[in-house]
C-alpha cells in the first residue's frame, strides 16, 4: 500500500473516531446542552434589551452634549462680541485715546477669555474667569465714571492699571 493511501486511511479513521465520540458525548449530555441553549437564548434577549436601553441613553447623552456645546459656543461668541463692543465704546468715549491702546486692551481681554474657556487646568481656568470678569468690570467702571464725572479723561486709567498689574 502506498504512503498517501496510508495517510488517507489514517485521517478517515481519525475523523470517524472523533465523530462517534462526539455523538456519544452529545447523547449523554443532551439535557445539559438543552439547558445551556435556553440560558444562552435568555442571555441574548437580555443583552439585546440592555443594548437597546443603552442606545436610547447614549443618543440622549449625545443630544445633550451637542446642545451644551452649542450653548457654550453661543456664550463664547457673545463674550467675543462684548469685547469688540467694548473696544468700539472706548474709541468712541475716549476721543483722544490712541487707537493702539484700545487694540491692546482688546487683545488682553481676548487672551484672558481664551484662557478662561480653554485652559485644561480647572483651577487656572477659574482664576482666569475671575480675572476676565474683573477686567470687564473695570472697563465698565471706567466708562461709567466717564459719564458720571462729566470731565473728559484721556485714558481708561483703571483698565490700563489693571492690565499693567498683570504684566508686571
Amino acid at each position, binding site marked *: 500500500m502506498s504512503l498517501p493511501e496510508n495517510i488517507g486511511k489514517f485521517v478517515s479513521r481519525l475523523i470517524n473516531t472523533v465523530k462517534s465520540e462526539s455523538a456519544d458525548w452529545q447523547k449523554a449530555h443532551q439535557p445539559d446542552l438543552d439547558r445551556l441553549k435556553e440560558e444562552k437564548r435568555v442571555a441574548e434577549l437580555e443583552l439585546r434589551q440592555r*443594548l437597546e436601553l*443603552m442606545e436610547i441613553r447614549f443618543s440622549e447623552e449625545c443630544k445633550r452634549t451637542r446642545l451644551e456645546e452649542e450653548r457654550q459656543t453661543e456664550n*463664547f461668541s457673545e463674550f467675543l462680541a462684548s469685547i469688540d463692543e467694548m473696544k468700539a465704546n472706548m474709541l468712541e468715549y475716549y476721543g483722544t485715546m490712541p487707537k493702539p491702546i484700545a487694540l491692546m486692551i482688546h*487683545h488682553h481681554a481676548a487672551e484672558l477669555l*481664551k484662557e478662561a*474657556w*480653554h485652559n485644561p487646568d480647572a483651577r487656572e481656568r477659574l482664576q482666569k474667569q475671575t480675572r476676565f470678569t474683573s477686567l470687564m468690570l473695570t472697563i465698565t467702571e471706567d466708562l461709567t465714571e466717564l459719564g458720571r464725572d462729566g470731565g473728559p479723561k484721556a485714558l481708561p486709567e483703571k483698565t490700563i492699571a489693571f492690565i499693567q498689574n498683570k504684566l508686571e
Partner: protein
Amino acid sequence: MPHSFSELSLIYVSFSMLALYAPAVLCALGLAFFLYRRHTRLERRQQKHQRIRHAITDKGLDKRKRMALAAQRRNIRELAKLVHGQLKQHERALTPYQNQRTSAFVERSVITVDFDRLYALHSLLAASDATQVSPAVETFFEHTR
C-alpha cells in the same frame, strides 16, 4: 513500489510547511480574537459612545478656538494697518531692506497673532523721528531675532 525522491520531498516539504506556519497563523488569529473579545459587547458600545462624545466636544472647542482666532486677527489687522501707515511715513528714512523686513514682520505678526511684538514695533516707530528710526528698527530686530 519505491517512491521517487521528488514525490517524497513534495509530501514532506508540504507537511513541514504546514507544521511550521499553521501554529503561527493560529496564534495570530487567537490573539486577534482574544483582543476583540477582551471587552464585552456592552463595553465596546460604551467606548464607541465615549469616542462620539469626545468628537462632539472637540468639534465645539475647535469652533470656539477658531472664533477667538478670527476676532484676534481682526484686532491685530487694525494695528498692522497703523504700522503700515507709520512705515509709509518713515519710508525714506529706512533702507529698502529694512522696509521689506518690517513689512514681512508685520505680516507674520498678523498670521501668528503676535500682538505684543507688533505693539512694541508700533510704539518704537511712534517714538522715533526720521533720524532715529533706522537704527531703532535695526536694534528692534536685533532684540527680536
